[in-house]
């Protein structure tokens, strides 16, 4: 069973930092996948197993769309594949799906390539009659992805860029804080759902804490098997050890031990640099 890439699109390309979208056939995954879940894939037989979020499923439930930023070795090798090239392995859906509320006010916050992850979640919330306020953040205008798609599923929609090249200059948390201050105390937001770089998610958690609003983040811990077998992805949440792959990937942002996560995500920093130098031309 070959997993041939059907479509490929470069969503962003800023001085070599590319965000790439691919569509692959995955009947058995598409039939079951829900918003918030992820897959694990291998580019070659010698490759790593890496987890990536399912960004979309086609309406016939035969293909899935994956969006990734070329960062480490495996995402860069993945970015080199063209339509008709094959993945070595693909498995999922993994992790718990997002629990979708009904008829509530929710914030959906996405930063960088994390926007790919909040898109299916925002859409699922919208479909259940929630009032969706979306805040997207990117370093610069060219790195902003899925803007139109997210606009369509949002009641309120905001964009920030670090350099002010588009939307409001600043961070997603600036807008989030403003809106929380102005929010109607009798009808408060029931949830803030945030996915992005760790510093962003951490800042979101710090921002929402004083407002006592439930905040969920989807964590990008390192994984190997991604089915609960190895414990590589363990994170401390509320002082307890959890496995991101089978207990998550979503956790209460106010309970996550961010320092530990940041450190654990750098376990292979040296080896990653070494192998990238060797294998990426």
């Amino acid at each position, binding site marked *: 069973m070959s997993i041939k890439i059907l479509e490929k699109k470069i969503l962003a390309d800023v001085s070599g930092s590319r965000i790439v979208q691919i569509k692959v056939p995955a009947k*058995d*995954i598409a*039939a*079951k996948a829900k918003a918030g879940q992820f897959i694990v894939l*291998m580019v*070659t037989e*010698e*490759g*790593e*197993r890496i987890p990536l979020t399912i960004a979309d499923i086609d309406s016939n439930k035969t293909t899935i769309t994956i969006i990734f930023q070329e960062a480490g*070795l*495996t995402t860069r090798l993945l970015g080199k594949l063209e339509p008709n090239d094959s993945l*070595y*392995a*693909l*498995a*999922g*859906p*993994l992790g718990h799906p997002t629990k979708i509320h009904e008829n509530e006010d929710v914030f959906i916050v996405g930063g960088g390539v994390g926007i790919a992850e909040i898109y299916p979640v925002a859409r699922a919330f919208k479909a259940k009659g929630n009032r969706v306020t979306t805040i997207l953040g990117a370093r610069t205008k060219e790195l902003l992805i899925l803007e139109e798609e997210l606009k369509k599923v949002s009641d309120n929609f905001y964009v920030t860029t670090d350099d002010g090249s588009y939307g409001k200059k600043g961070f997603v948390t600036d807008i989030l804080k403003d809106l929380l201050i102005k929010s109607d105390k009798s009808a408060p937001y029931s949830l803030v759902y945030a996915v992005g770089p760790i510093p962003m998610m951490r800042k979101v958690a710090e921002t929402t804490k004083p407002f006592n609003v439930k905040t969920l983040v989807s964590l990008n811990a390192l994984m*190997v*098997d991604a*089915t*609960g*077998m*190895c*414990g*590589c992805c*363990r*994170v*401390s949440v509320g002082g307890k*050890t959890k*496995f991101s792959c*089978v207990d998550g990937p979503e956790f209460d942002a106010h309970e996550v031990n961010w*320092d*530990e996560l940041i*450190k*654990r995500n*750098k*376990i*292979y920093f040296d*080896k*990653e640099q*070494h*192998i990238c130098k*060797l*294998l990426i031309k």
Partner: protein
Amino acid sequence: MVKKEPVKIKEVEASIRAGNFDEVILGYNEDEALHEAARCLQCKNPLCISGCPVGIDIKTFIYKITRKDYAGAYNTIREKNNFPSICGRVCPAEYQCRKACVLSKKGLPFASAQAINIHFLERFTGDYGMLHPSPSKAACSGPQIKKVAIVGSGPAGLCCAGELARAGIKVIVYEGLHKLGGVLRYGIPPFRLPRNILDYEIDSLKKMGVEFIPNFIVGRNKDVDELLKDGFSAVFLGLGAGIPSFLGIKGENLCNIYSANEFLTRVNLMSAYKFPKAHTPVNIGKSMVIIGGGNTAMDAARCALRLQKMNGMSPNTTILYRRSEVELPARRLEIEHAKEEGIKFKLLVKPQEFVGDEKGFVTKLRCLQCELGEPDSSGRRKPIEIPGSDFEVDCDIAVVAIGLNANEILTKVTPSLKTDKYGDVIVEQESMETSIKNVFAGGDIVGGEGTVIEAMGMAKKAAKSIIEKLCNQR
């Protein structure tokens, strides 16, 4: 009454083998096998067979070796065990058939050296069978009307698949990982079980018509009900033990503290010892510490030491275990191998706390010395901490090898599947049928952590019930 000394097995010299992942034990040649087989007393009432979880007719296969009827010996084993080349390498024979052997001194927790080397003879016979395939074990040409799904391609799944295929049943094996073999692939290192042996055994199942589907997670892609509705007459769950246990002590989430599952999966399944040719990394330290005393701990320690040597570091790998040497649950052979290769053992030690540096990497492990008290529920003497005996060991990589809990990925989404307080699947002891009709289970998901051959024993029982059930349905 013992006439001859046991025939020693040839092994690669410790200083050489510890620098690579090639097989350590070289096996008997024909002459050695004949000599060892000749030591067998051919007891009227052979006790060894009672020690084998699958009931191999040990007496007969050894007799056939003495008659140089190796094909016959192979067929005798295959009547009960589909994978003699695997079991001859990984069975803890000294706790099973060899312990029951009449030549073994009694009153020891494991077989004495005088016991017949049944496992080496099994390996010799299995490897002979591999090199001289006979038509008798070729594909079953039955109509394959009935179809059975097997979940998991580890020892239990492979064994069940073989039994069913031989009975003319169509078998499809679903495996969640990208490669087949389960713990035989991700857990047991190639220096104990070379991959060509495992591949050969899996290929021979394929030749019998067994179909394998990797990257398919039952419980995610399909659940058990859907499999039954899809036309499978029965389902066998060989899910294995899944979630690694940790010590629950302070500092355990520091960087470079691995579960044995993660460490071994990186090294074996993902071939991290070939990094950067294989892309999955594993970190290697100056002072590698393995916590635990089972086979998994020995495997992890021997992998760690090899990684150190292969990377030009001086070997420094230590096993910490809270009881004394006699209680080490690992195979005696692996303990000897580990010692020969230079692994240090610090016994009667209980880890208290991991200490790390400012970057979050582990640097030291604080421990307490223990002494042995009265036997506990496991029958082994209980380690008791000695107050004030605190000490530290250098530790820049730690591997926690203290056991596994049930993986609940499938059981959680299958509420009608009854499990016990450990999350293990409950089965009817004779038939191995679960609380769901036509769904059977075996291996570690039933018994907790056991051996490869125990898993196969359960899988055989389940296969027998499945075959009986399907025949009655016809």
